């Protein structure tokens, strides 16, 4: 995050140190905060942890979310579920597309944060950010199509109209991938909310800053408060209460290692959460529909049609 203007340094060589100090502008650090229920609280724990780049240079302090923050996030996600799942698919598509629009305008910031977080060159980081923006566009287009791909009329053998439609599962906990701090995060978050679920996201533990900045973008992108909630801190520490939470309906374990994943899956079994196990994913490739369908329920409706008798008396 060094933003020392170079020519200022040059002049400093020629003048006294004192004068150089007068010329050099001190940057304003950002206080990174959680994103819960559309607001930006500090952690309830009051604790933070140091975030560094891969070489160990300090970048910022990130909030260390507690189990109470997790609880608050679930309450917020549940409260938002009715409105978000009840919005038209078209509306959700517009909102997701708006996220892409807003990200495009703040690309520079995210390129810097991803470069710092993952130790990438600006060019490589830009590829990640651009792919992430396009991923929002990809899922924006899915909101009003997934039902047409996975739902449909069923020709039951009887005088019944029979239609299956997908519906969102509910509140989904998402353990964002640990390595891909932004593209990976977007790749697991966007499909969850595209279909009308609401999400509690645990950001990459060591690279949480792009996720927290994403919260700022979501807050200004017509995404209703509570639809996405972003927590940072110890993944295992936050995930445990969420995996066991009776008001969470599903969990994506992308960011868990093998041991943690097993432990969380066992906890998730208590209320039969839908579980997506961690697996190797190439986040730069175009995704399929797996992450959409993972958090969908199928609802089938039967309705009598009346027999097509010659007399017509049945209708």
């Amino acid at each position, binding site marked *: 995050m060094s933003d020392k203007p170079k020519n200022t340094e040059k002049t400093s060589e020629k003048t006294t140190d004192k004068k150089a100090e007068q010329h050099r502008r001190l940057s304003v650090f950002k206080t990174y905060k959680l994103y819960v229920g559309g607001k930006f609280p500090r952690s309830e724990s009051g604790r933070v942890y140091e975030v560094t780049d891969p070489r160990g240079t300090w970048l910022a302090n990130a909030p260390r979310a507690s189990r109470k923050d997790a609880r608050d996030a679930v309450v917020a996600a549940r409260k938002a579920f009715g409105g978000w799942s009840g919005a038209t698919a078209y509306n959700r*598509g517009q909102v997701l597309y708006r996220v892409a629009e807003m990200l495009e305008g703040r690309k520079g910031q995210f390129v810097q944060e991803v470069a710092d977080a993952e130790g990438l060159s600006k060019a490589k980081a830009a590829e990640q950010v651009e792919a992430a923006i396009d991923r929002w566009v990809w899922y924006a*287009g899915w909101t*009003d199509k997934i039902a047409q*791909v996975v739902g449909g009329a069923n020709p039951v053998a009887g005088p019944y109209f029979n239609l299956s439609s997908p519906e969102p599962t509910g509140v989904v906990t998402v353990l964002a991938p640990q390595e891909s701090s932004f593209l990976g995060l977007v790749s697991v978050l966007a499909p969850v909310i595209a279909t009308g679920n609401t999400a509690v996201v645990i950001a990459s533990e060591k690279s949480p800053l792009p996720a927290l900045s994403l919260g700022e973008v979501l807050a200004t992108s017509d995404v209703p408060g509570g639809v996405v909630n972003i927590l940072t801190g110890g993944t295992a520490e936050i995930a445990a209460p969420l995996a066991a939470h009776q008001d969470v309906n599903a969990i994506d374990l992308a960011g868990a290692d093998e041991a943690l994943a097993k432990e969380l899956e066992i906890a998730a079994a208590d209320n039969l959460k839908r579980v997506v196990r961690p697996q190797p994913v190439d986040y730069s490739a175009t995704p399929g529909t797996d992450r959409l369908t993972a958090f969908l329920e199928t609802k089938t409706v039967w309705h009598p*049609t009346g027999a*097509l008798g010659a007399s017509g008396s049945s*209708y």
Partner: protein
Amino acid sequence: MASAMDSAFAYAPAPESRSVVDIAPSYGLFIDGEFTEAADGKVFKTVSPSTEEVLSEVAQAGEADVDRAVKAARRAFEKWSALPGSERAKYLFRIARIIQERSRELAVLETLDNGKPIKETRDADLPLVAAHFFYYAGWADKLDHAGFGSNPRPLGVAGQVIPWNFPLLMLAWKIAPALATGNTVVLKPAETTPLSALFFADICRQAGLPKGVVNILPGYGDTGAALVAHPDVNKVAFTGSTAVGKAIARQVAGTKKKVTLELGGKGANIVFDDAPIDQAVEGIVTGIFFNQGQVCCAGSRLLVQESIHDELLDSLKRRLATLRLGDPLDKNTDIGAINSAEQLARISSLVEQGEAEGAERWSPSCELPSSGYWFAPTLFTNVTQAHTVARDEIFGPVLSVLTFRTPDEAVAKANNSQYGLSAGIWTEKGSRILAVAGKLRAGVIWSNTFNKFDPTSPFGGYKESGYGREGGRHGLEAYLDV
């Protein structure tokens, strides 16, 4: 009508500002990203149907222009079809957003050129246009998931001919799926409503769409015929009259051109005795008076169960008396102008025929403006299946009322038509809705509502109402080599 009998609480005029749209005195053809004159220099005038004022002078494309446009589209096709779907998607999303941004301007423009009320262009046409582009934008990179096998290919150059009743919406129905699937387009708008298509050309420019991907050729029927006949056109999409649709079907015989036709209709709106009456009345009004009845899927035949005929007709007549006919730019206008003198003459002649054949004509008391093309909302009662007004598509604000006694009779009468585009069913009994819907030979059936459209929902007809579907996942098929 309301305007004539208003007492104290009369709505003051509430005209939408005309100044939000800047119409140039003349427009060219839009070929290969440029506005150009017609090769033979021909032009025609487009007028506002509500005032007969000339809005602009527009270049009229001839055969040479058609050839030039098709060549441009062919050149553009190579790169356009080779673009990753996700990039085509982003162009279409841009177009959708620019349409949303410019929707007020486009709504006023459409109202001026077409004559339909601003209430409709603002609340129906423009939102649907933007939604259509938004929807198909999302398909561009998901064609593998659309159910046509992996990597379905575009056809090539699409020749598209659209009508005047929903100029920009019909453009959207044609262009959005064509571009999403990787085709390029030559589109001919109707001669009475070319302006919104020409404004759309400017939107393509703002969106940075590559040259030649969209070409717009204003003109008359002969321009459309030349386009359809052009040997390098791979796909023909037409919305319009059944007569022209049949001519196109003959014209493309023996070629490899893929064709979709969205043609006329004589939709039956069936009201059973257990219908939610107040909502049924609204649905009947929407069904036939939306866009002055100039809608191919209009509910132009009211089939009412005999036991509630009188009650329903009383309610309907009372409701018609509140319709406000007049300046289409007034936000309180319900009924605007008929699109052209020709269309007005056709409506008038069919209505005269209805009277001559003994049907009973009724309209609310209604003052028509002195200039422009106007027709009062009209009901025909005592209509039978044998009457011309029960069989021919009038394409105007004219409703023919017939009765039935049983569901079987309703279905039989509804299906007794050369057309099969739309139908309505009004009853509170769910199984009756589904049973009747199952027996109707029509492509779109609304129950307890009417004239609803959505980009996700396929639209198209049975029988002489045409073939192929526009909208939804089904709408992709018409533009893919599948």
